[in-house]
């Protein structure tokens, strides 16, 4: 009885008693959710266009951020003394590296493995993960690095808002992350619905064969899609790196973003965003209000159980296309 009381009553009393704390928790959940959504977005883009479940998305986040920081270090060593210039040159070069990566993936993995079962392609991205981990550590070293957020003019510090009889403290970098993520999503939406390439992308997502038949080059589309998702990964890496630091531990957040995917559906961009927010907020609320009941650390699996609960009612995710099977 007292356990039920603790589960169904006490947390809500706590919420009502300290609304500022509730708002603070919601905000933190929201920010985490935005970043989860960004990672999920990278997954969804690739899954829609090439049918590949890209396990390497997490390491692409790390690889992008590491390349940026590493190149910045190199540039400042070799004479570019103005930090801002060096930072933006490094950013440009990193984008070029991500393009090369997309090109290489298309050439070395997607093209030879075209028309293979999904699980084979999944395994290939697994190999890619190993490859990128080794390459990143070999070139840039395995030590955690500090993201060059000042040089990229990312804001720092916190804003304190006075509300609901208390203070809510918002990190400026979190606000920036939310804004940049929104701009990025809006930009992608426009890109997909209004441009010629965007239409071609959607055609490929609908049916590879039909797209080929009307003269769309699959190779080109794949490079573009992997490049786009590399850019999304880079942005995620910058934002997440600015919040903590750039290290290989970051790839664990990609595993955190997987429940977002099953919640939103593999093929839905709105699903990735809404799913990200639900998971982010649910995770933080659960950890803060219900976590003490079970001992801490429930963050690691709570998201999966939230997603599973949704899945039992909608097996294709909230926004996924209905799976129709024929015999």
């Amino acid at each position, binding site marked *: 009885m007292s356990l039920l009381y603790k589960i169904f009553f006490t947390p809500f009393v706590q919420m009502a008693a300290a609304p500022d704390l509730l708002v603070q928790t919601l905000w933190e959940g929201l920010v985490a959710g935005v970043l989860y959504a960004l990672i999920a977005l990278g997954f969804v883009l690739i899954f829609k266009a090439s049918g590949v479940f890209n396990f390497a998305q997490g390491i692409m986040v790390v690889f992008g951020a590491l390349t940026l920081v590493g190149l910045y270090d190199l540039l400042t060593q070799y004479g570019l003394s103005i930090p801002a210039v060096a930072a933006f040159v490094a950013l440009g070069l990193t984008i070029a590296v991500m393009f090369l990566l997309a090109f290489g993936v298309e050439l070395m993995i997607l093209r030879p493995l075209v028309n*293979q079962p999904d*699980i084979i392609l999944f395994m290939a991205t697994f190999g890619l993960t190993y490859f990128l981990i080794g390459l990143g550590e070999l070139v840039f070293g395995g030590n955690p690095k500090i993201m060059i957020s000042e040089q990229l003019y990312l804001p720092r510090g916190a804003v304190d808002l006075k509300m609901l009889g208390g203070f809510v403290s918002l990190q400026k970098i979190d606000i920036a992350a939310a804004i940049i993520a929104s701009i990025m999503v809006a930009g992608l939406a426009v890109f997909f619905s209004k441009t010629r390439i965007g239409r071609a992308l959607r055609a490929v997502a609908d049916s590879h064969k039909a797209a080929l038949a009307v003269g769309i080059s699959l190779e080109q589309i794949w490079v573009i899609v992997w490049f786009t998702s590399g850019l999304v990964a880079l942005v995620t890496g910058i934002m997440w790196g600015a919040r903590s630091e750039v290290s290989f531990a970051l790839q664990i957040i990609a595993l955190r973003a997987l429940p977002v995917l099953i919640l939103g559906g593999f093929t839905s961009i709105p699903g990735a965003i809404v799913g990200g927010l639900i998971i982010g907020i649910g995770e933080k609320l659960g950890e803060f209000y219900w976590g003490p009941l079970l001992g801490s*650390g429930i963050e690691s699996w709570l998201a999966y159980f939230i997603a599973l609960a949704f899945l039992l009612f909608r097996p294709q995710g909230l926004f996924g296309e209905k799976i129709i099977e024929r015999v």
Partner: protein
Amino acid sequence: MFYREAGQFKTSYASDEAVFPIRQDKIGIIVILLVAFVAIPLFGNGFLLQAVMIPFLIYTLATIGLNLLTGYTGLLSLGTGAFMGVGAYACYKLATVFPEVNILVWILASGFVAAAVGVFFGLPSLRIKGFYLAIATLAAQFFLQWCFVRIPWLVNYNISNAIEVPTRTLFGIAVVGPTASPQVRYLIVLTIVVVMTWIASNIVRGRIGRMWMAVRDMDIAAELMGIRLLPTKLLAFAVSSFYCGVAGAMMVFLWYGGAEADTFNINQSFFVLSMVIIGGLGSLLGSYLGAALIFILPILLRLVPAELGMPLHPATAEHLSFIIVGALIILFLIVEPHGLARLWQLAKQKLRVWPYPY
């Protein structure tokens, strides 16, 4: 020329349905077993036994377990590491609560605990499929690993929060614990793995295996043909988790000699999955080949530079081996997406028709 079945006539159904219908295969398997049971423990040094053969066999067993689920039944699972962990923790708990019962009994019995847990986490498989299911099984991975850390009862309230393997004997010879010799442990692991492979090969050839394969190929069609999906899928989860649980228990008791919760992390799951896919989905031979390639390759890669007289910094060698293993996984998939087992099949076919291929 030497490898063909010409002149070997089958006079009964039993001989036609034998595991190895070709005489050369029988001789080959006997030779391999002789080498494994006699030559390796006699002539192998401690390094070969402890660092190569024992882990290779244990991973093979886990790979067979996952192959039964993913390769034969078509259910993708990423919770292997956790199921191995369940086996290990169950074995530790049982062995310390009932110390008078022989440890080998508990190693096998711990598989049943893992099977029960596997069935529970297999329940969503009826509703969701494919990669959705794979991610759902990740819930098992993270939840169980959290349990290993947070429930001190599992490790008898050890301060170190880790399993420490006690010494146990069989016929007066230490088989587990710090005093057990590598030879003894190797022979026990080998026996268990060979027997369980034999059982698995008979399961997949029989009614149950055919039901699993029907479900894999198309579950709706299988259902229409009268196969009940829920028991079939859950049975696959149970048998698979049983194998993984035994592998986990052996890993701790006969290889590591101790373990903490992080031993059974998500990388373990991915490691085993890559063995399944590289070896060949739906092939027991492939499980052996995949485990050999994925486990032994990095060891060889670390030995090569030293042999060639190019001393590499250990960290650099580690990173290089990551790069090479990653590239090789992709390369093998491109060369033969159906895995090493398929390569062996093709080679066998070439041998049979040699020297007149047409």
